[in-house]
């Protein structure tokens, strides 16, 4: 019974934890411009994150080594540092976007200027990281994030023309008024939003925080293989809502209020408040995960003591690094930059940085010195290799498409 409960809890947190500001914004934008014409990318991204998280979780549980330790060990100091620089910068952008997202959702709830909410949100993130136990932090935000299911409910309440939605999803390609390059640019953004590296840094370091062993592998597999796909369904529901309400009205998504507009139209104030709670929890949870990931990556590259299972004074540089990150994120937001815009860029750069993060995990998952007889099987290597190619292609295409399309405008 306890075990079933643990699995259920893990799955629920995985669903809630899958969606963050990047998924919310990118899916709403894509839905409002392309309908469900890019839903297939969410599918590709979800399978990718399952493969990646499954491997890094297994490596962490069997060998006790977290993802960035492996990256440093396999890539060496130079390529490792390049990867650290890129991953850390993207993480910082994402921390900024998530804290901004918390402030924006508080603005939706209270109509108070988001700039006034930024310090509150930042302090909230810090105090939880400083004081709360890892398990608590993971479960509460994951469970509250489940209220995002309201997007799926709203989609049904809007009673859309299911045939035309399915038609969009099954006949991929840009609508007549959109360019092919813009279509592919958003495909990469959506892929980057689903496969953000920070999720894997957090997931693998979390396995060590919670002292996973080989016995926990089955639980981990269930969490990933059930939770992430359901999170992907939520993502598609967000895009679907936008496709039904925003696309016909030609409304461009430039703020969170447009993201939740379809929910308000379908279910009124009650549904809207659920959506706001969901977005607040999802962004707050993701702000915690990204801030922790900044600390994890730095500490693991340099070999510092890290982890929330230690008291802060026993992982001092790890905690100091996170405090500095939160301050930098606040400083960026204080310039008045639009968090939605920061989000759009961070998901694209996520796609660029992915290969160097993914490759070492694929190698170590096959190394008997680390894994004993728990190395990848044939099927896992086949799909892992296919994704290596997909990730490489996306990374190489991302920057040219960013420039050609003027960031999708």
């Amino acid at each position, binding site marked *: 019974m306890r075990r079933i409960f643990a699995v259920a809890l893990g799955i629920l947190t995985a669903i809630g934890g899958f969606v963050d500001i990047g998924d919310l914004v990118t899916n709403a934008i894509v839905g409002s411009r392309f309908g469900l014409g890019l839903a297939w990318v969410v599918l590709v991204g979800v399978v990718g994150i399952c493969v990646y998280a499954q491997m890094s979780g297994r490596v962490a549980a069997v060998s006790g080594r977290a993802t960035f330790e492996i990256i440093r060990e396999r890539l060496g100091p130079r390529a490792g540092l390049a990867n650290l620089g890129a991953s850390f910068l993207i993480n910082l952008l994402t921390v900024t976007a998530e804290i901004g997202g918390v402030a924006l959702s508080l603005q939706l709830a209270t109509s108070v200027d988001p700039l006034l909410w930024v310090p509150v949100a930042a302090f909230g993130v810090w105090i939880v990281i400083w004081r709360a136990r890892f398990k608590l932090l993971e479960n509460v935000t994951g469970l509250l994030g489940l209220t995002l299911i309201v997007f799926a409910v709203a989609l049904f309440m809007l009673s859309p023309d299911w045939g035309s939605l399915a038609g969009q999803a099954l006949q991929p390609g840009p609508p007549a008024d959109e360019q092919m390059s813009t279509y592919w640019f958003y495909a990469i953004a959506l892929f980057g939003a689903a496969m953000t590296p920070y999720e894997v840094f957090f997931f693998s370091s979390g396995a060590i925080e919670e002292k996973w062993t080989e016995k926990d592998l089955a639980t981990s597999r269930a969490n990933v293989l059930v939770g992430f796909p359901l999170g992907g369904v939520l993502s598609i529901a967000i895009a679907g809502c936008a496709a039904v309400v925003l696309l016909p009205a030609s409304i461009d998504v430039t703020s969170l209020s447009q993201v939740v507009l379809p929910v308000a139209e379908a279910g009124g104030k009650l549904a809207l408040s659920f959506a706001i709670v969901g977005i607040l929890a999802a962004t707050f949870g993701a702000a915690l995960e990204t801030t922790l990931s900044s600390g994890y990556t730095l500490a693991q590259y340099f070999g510092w003591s890290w982890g929330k299972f230690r008291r802060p004074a026993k992982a001092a540089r790890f905690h100091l690094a996170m405090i500095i990150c939160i301050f930098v994120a606040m400083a960026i937001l204080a310039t008045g930059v639009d968090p939605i815009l920061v989000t759009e860029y961070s998901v694209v750069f996520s796609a660029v940085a992915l290969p160097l993060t993914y490759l070492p995990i694929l190698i170590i998952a*096959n190394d*008997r010195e680390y894994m*004993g007889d728990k190395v990848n099987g044939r099927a896992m290597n086949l799909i*892992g290799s296919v994704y*290596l*190619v997909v990730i490489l292609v996306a990374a190489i295409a991302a920057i040219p498409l960013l420039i050609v399309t003027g960031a999708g405008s």
Partner: protein
Amino acid sequence: MILSDLLGSEVVDAAGHHLGALIDVRLEISGAPHQLLAETVVVGILVSPHSRTSTWGFERRGANAPAIIARPQHWLHRGMFLIAWTDVAQIDEGRVTLRDGYERRDPVLASTAHPH
């Protein structure tokens, strides 16, 4: 001497002909016993004719999975060999000279599986 000063050095035979690059140093934990671990001694150097950087050891561990990474790695390090330390005549900055009549040995590591 620092390990990274050795890595990437050019390896030449006694007549000065280029043989490849030193990409790793083979050690053995077998010397005089210490309190915790026996002394770790250098027993040889690994020379790769076609690549200057040691990477992931696929060629030394006989590892073949995943093929998408293993194949190019085996190709990059084709012809790699081990030189016993006793066959090394002199170390200079960026250059290692072997003795006359040195022997090219098999670089493959015995099973190093060391699960946790």
